[in-house]
């Protein structure tokens, strides 16, 4: 087993153990249902109402979901995963609700037990289903509401509870906090890589990811090299916390909001005009799309993902790279939250083109890309091992069909899933980080 794969397995086990020891009060069944409904009532809006009115039960969304494809089980149909939300809407909010209440049963505690598994273990919020629906129904935001409701009822997986508790009480993730970021920076400084930490003012604030600090310090080193080469006035803010905003995936809105407020406050305090999120899909989508909504005002800075930033700098001619030796071919895996959730498709490919590699696209790429199977926290969820492996098999098949020499991606979460999945399937395809590939070939 590779060292990183061993570390990932250790993380999963550690997280499972933390989950087993987390102390929470179990709510009475009726209270759980009430809390779920309270979240539904708060989150449902006109857009979701239109979507829920429109669904035909055609089942097409299942045919593009990797979990249905891998298992053939109807319960993994994406729209079915939001059934309690639909039930609530149709009974209690819809214009015909008064009539439907007569014939449609209410949500039960047993429903919550069933859907807890469907939304936490069998959905990566990859949003591929959003791309096929002939009615134009956007399912992924409704999955987020489902997760939030289940979390509010105290029914999210124990591992997620443990992480949310840690974020709220200690401000660290998996025990990683400012001290660890300082240690990583010191290690890199010893290698001659300057990592400016906690500058009071800087034009650019860069976030650090706890996962990178634990597993991929090479990505942090690569980021620092690129920023230094560009001669930017930049800094890492150690108090900004983890870039992954893991609670965006866990559904714990309070923990997510706390993490986002800290990131926004640190960036504003630095007077930065740009905030760059490292190779982390969830972190980017969370800050980019939820940051302003959490603080209740437009953000006074631009939010970019590192792959977006690097691609733009290369396109603008400010960052020069050396072409790699001829004959190297890669396939690019679009992280769902950076691609389909956030529209970053061209910039990473621009960077790869500048490196002179041959890009061999998978049949499903860019907006129709298959998720790696580990998104939305599934990579660390042991209950999802079998489903994740099935989804990863689909990804492997598409990547193999390209004949490319390696898979390049721009998300640590995806990278973890690929490394662990490859280990499990004995797949030999090298997995590369875009930012590391660029940093290793700066002109």
């Amino acid at each position, binding site marked *: 087993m590779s060292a990183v794969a061993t570390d990932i397995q250790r993380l999963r086990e550690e997280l499972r153990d933390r989950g087993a020891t987390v102390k929470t009060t179990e709510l009475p069944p009726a209270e759980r249902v009430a809390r779920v409904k309270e979240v539904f009532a708060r989150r449902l*809006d006109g857009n979701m109402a239109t979507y829920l009115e429109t669904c035909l039960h055609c089942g097409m969304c299942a045919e593009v979901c990797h979990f249905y494809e891998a298992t053939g089980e*109807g319960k993994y*149909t994406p729209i*079915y995963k939001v059934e309690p939300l639909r039930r609530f809407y149709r009974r209690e909010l819809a214009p015909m609700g008064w009539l439907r209440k007569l014939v449609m049963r209410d949500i039960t505690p047993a429903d919550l037990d069933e859907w807890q598994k469907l939304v936490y273990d069998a959905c990566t919020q990859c949003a591929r289903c959003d791309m096929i629906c002939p009615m134009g129904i956007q399912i992924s935001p409704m999955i987020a509401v489902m997760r939030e409701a289940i979390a509010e009822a105290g029914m999210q997986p124990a591992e997620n509870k443990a992480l949310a508790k840690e974020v709220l009480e200690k401000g660290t993730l998996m025990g990683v906090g400012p001290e660890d970021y300082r240690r990583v920076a010191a290690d890199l400084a010893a290698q001659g890589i300057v990592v400016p930490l906690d500058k009071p003012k800087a034009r650019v604030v860069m976030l650090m990811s706890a996962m990178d600090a634990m597993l991929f310090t090479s990505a942090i080193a690569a980021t620092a090299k690129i920023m230094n080469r560009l001669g930017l006035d930049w800094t890492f803010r150690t108090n900004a916390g983890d870039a992954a905003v893991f609670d965006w995936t866990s559904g714990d809105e309070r923990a997510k909001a706390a993490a986002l407020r800290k990131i926004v406050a640190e960036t504003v305090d630095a007077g930065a005009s740009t905030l760059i999120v490292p190779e982390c899909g969830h972190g980017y989508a969370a800050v980019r799309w939820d940051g*302003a909504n959490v603080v209740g005002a437009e953000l006074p800075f631009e939010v970019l993902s590192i792959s977006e930033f690097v691609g733009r700098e290369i396109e603008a001619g400010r960052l020069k790279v050396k072409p790699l030796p001829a004959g190297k071919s890669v396939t690019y895996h679009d992280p769902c939250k950076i691609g389909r959730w956030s529209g970053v498709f061209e910039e990473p490919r621009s960077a790869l083109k500048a490196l002179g590699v041959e890009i061999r696209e998978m049949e499903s790429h860019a907006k129709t890309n298959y998720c790696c199977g580990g998104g939305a926290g599934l990579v660390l969820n042991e209950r999802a091992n079998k489903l994740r492996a099935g989804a990863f098999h689909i990804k492997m098949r598409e990547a193999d069909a390209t004949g490319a020499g390696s898979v390049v991606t721009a998300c640590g979460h995806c990278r973890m899933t690929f490394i662990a999945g490859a280990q499990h399937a004995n797949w030999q395809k090298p997995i590369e980080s875009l930012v590391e590939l660029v940093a290793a070939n700066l002109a």
Partner: protein
Amino acid sequence: MTLLEFARGPGMQWALVIFLVGVAWRLVGTFLIARRRDLSKPKGTAYVKAGARSMIMRSIPPHELEKNIQFQHLTGYAWHLGFFATLLLFGPHVPFFQQFLGFGWPTLPNIVVLVIAGFTLAILIALVVRRIIHPVMRQISTLDDWIAVFLVIIPLVTGFLSYAHIGVMGVRYETLLGLHILSIEALLVWFPFSKLMHLFFTFPSRYQIGVSMERKGVKA
């Protein structure tokens, strides 16, 4: 009052009232629900163009998505076209519309429409069978799905019986025609309460996702 007279008179009037009031109630009630204000900075702002694009492009999904749904996709198109062709282009139907609208339009030869209606009926029956045996369809089907497909099939069946003057157990032609018209009225009455409302919701929903994804910089 005979069954046919009821169907042509008060039956049709009440069915239309329920249809129109119900559709308006459901559309207005849904569109009045407030939209959440999104404070994040959009990546794209060509909302009308993006919404219009999605309204069209959702009918033509990319190959890698469409390859798994070809059967549903093609049969879906086929039976909708067949149903509306039968409804609107069948010779005996046009005078019915003419009395409401005051004008008529050219029709297809009866034999052509009968063949189209036959194909439409066959596809609908195949889709019912699929809904029964397919794991996804079994999982997600609700009572509304069964009622809706039944109410779409029945006008086709009673239409065939009426046209062919096939008496079932001595039932007269006028009664069959009355039942045919009543089956359409049942469809109209059920319409506002059911998934048949997708006729009105599909394009607003497609527009919405186009706008939502435009904000994120994705053509959807």
